[in-house]
């Protein structure tokens, strides 16, 4: 039994026959929930992914503009950039990795 099948089986076992109304409501809710997910996947998932990717690229651009000194790009004015430093501490290593990573064709595709 795969994980998916087990999960479906668990769901079926979890639906008590006596509780008709909740089961019905859950079923309808579940149906609409799944329909919504399918619609989201078909219509909006790509859009969301693109928006998040763009936002991610902008985040890296933002760190470059404000903290460029970390990779040798002079920035201005360092005094006010320091004020932003505490907020980007967790992103610094990801950002540096991204800045220094070699780029290839797949970057443009995915």
């Amino acid at each position, binding site marked *: 039994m795969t994980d998916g099948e087990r999960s479906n089986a668990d769901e079926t076992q979890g639906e008590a026959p006596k509780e008709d109304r909740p089961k019905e409501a859950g079923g309808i809710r579940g149906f609409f929930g799944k329909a919504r997910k399918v619609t*989201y996947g078909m219509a*909006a998932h790509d*859009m*969301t992914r693109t*928006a*998040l990717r*763009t*936002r991610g690229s*902008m*985040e890296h*651009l*933002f760190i470059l*503009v*404000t*903290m460029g*000194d*970390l990779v040798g790009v002079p920035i*201005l*004015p*360092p*005094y*006010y*950039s*320091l*004020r*932003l*430093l*505490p*907020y*980007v*501490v*967790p992103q*610094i*290593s990801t950002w540096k990795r991204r800045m220094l990573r070699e780029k290839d064709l797949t970057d443009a595709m995915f």
Partner: protein
Amino acid sequence: MSGEKGGNEAPLRTLGSGSLAAVFREHPERRYVMFGGKGGLGKTTFSAATAFWLARQGHKVMVFSVDPQASLSDIFQRDIFGQGPVKIMDNLWAQEIDADKHIAEYQDEIRKKIVDMYGMERVPDEIEDYIQAASAEPAMEESAIFDAVVDIVVGGEYDYYIYDLVPLGHALYYLSMAKVYDEWINKITHLREEMRGYEEVVAKIRREGEVEEDKILGELQYIRGRINAASRILVDREKTAFFFVVIPEEMVLADTRQAAEMFARFDVPIGGYVVNRVLPAELLTEGAPTFLSNRIRMQRRYLDQIDSTLGEQVLARVPELERDVTGLDMIERTAEMLFME
């Protein structure tokens, strides 16, 4: 030379012009006062004298230096460097910013914020290196002074703020810094707002409700508020008066003319000119040494030039004194000559 100007009458002020006292009386709204000019012409002297005169008129005055090599301590004969606002006399406070101390406190504030935000024991080495390196940048000192000045002027506790400016070239740098910072902060704030826009779109599509507050955007708006406040003051025609200090010498006049054009480009409102170090005409006697009489004649030529080109913009002529201006007595004497009507 007895024929010139009737011998003993050296005009301390230009004929038919306004006076510095009249300018201050007629424009009480001009709370931000700056004296600019080449190095060593008397900017600090006139800043101190103006502060003294205004304080004596009953106004609460703060005179402060934006020069890393400030000399307010010397002129007031008090060590005020890095001690915050120091009361000099009734209604008069003076301040010299210790940029190094300001930077060190600022670094500690950043370190503490990082440690508190992420529950770290100490700042990671990579980040600490960055903090150290950024603080060693040449622009850091000027930026720190710029920021400290914002603290002083936005406080609004005083009736008048007298800026003891750095020499001309540097003052232009200070002014351009305000403009460049202004543009920089506006651009990156705009970038951050755009990022926020994307976050909101995603949240809307996913029906996630409110997006989390962007603390960086909050900080940027705070920084922008401070920089804009400082830039606004420098170009505010209503509240700011910028006075050039000149001496009657060719190079000084030529440089000042050029600087005036540049200041105008930065929209700095020029309130007038003060001529310093005018040799008293009574020294031009028949037995006067050639050196002295030549200098006095040279000054006369340039004073005429100043009058014909600047006319009523010349608000005061202050004579060369027999000693340097230090201490309140000499400051008072200078103020009397500077604000003579």
